[in-house]
């Protein structure tokens, strides 16, 4: 399932996929696939992304509708 929250957070922060990828030390493709919901990132990467975007894991990866 597509991760709209991540995409919105990245755009709000004014970052491109490449910029976010560089800050998280991964490739642009990885960020793209995480946003598309086609790759499940490790907890380490989730924490890196959340730290770079100044958000919590809940803000980015928790889906209230799935509870």
């Amino acid at each position, binding site marked *: 399932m597509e991760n709209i929250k991540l995409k919105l957070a990245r755009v709000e922060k004014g970052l491109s996929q490449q910029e976010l990828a560089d800050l998280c*030390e991964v*490739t642009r493709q*990885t960020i793209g696939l995480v946003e598309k919901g086609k790759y499940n990132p490790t907890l380490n990467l989730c924490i890196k992304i959340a730290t770079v975007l100044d958000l919590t894991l809940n803000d980015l990866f928790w889906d209230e509708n799935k509870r």
Partner: protein
Amino acid sequence: MKTKDKKPFLNMDERNKQVAYRIMAIMYLLTIFAMQAVVIYRQFVLGQELGDFEDIAIIMTVNSLFLISALLYFGAIPIRKLKIKSILLIYLLLVTLGSLFTYAKYNIFAGPNLSFSQLFEKLIAVYAVSGIIMLFFILFSILGKRKMEKELE
């Protein structure tokens, strides 16, 4: 003091590595299957002696042995407790498969047929090798468990 940034190997991130590992595992399995097919083809179609393809057979045996041992040691195969019953069952399975293969090899595919005593001698080797393989696996399971317990301490 300036420290040099440690660059990841080939600039791979976690996803690249995951994909690479998956492909390597599949290619490894395909290689092992291909080697097995080569051994069967040489033995039963070309009718070659064991000495003609012994190198391939040894590589495959050692490879499979170390693969399973490594899986046990690094905790890829979940074992809660080593039970005598399970060990005996696996040993019996190995012995049965080995015996069937040995019987088929000498009395079905290759002639002349071996007498019961000759076949029994071959089967004793199968029982011994199966036992050694089991001991090898048990040893690595115990070492792996100890390693894991140490890490959890």
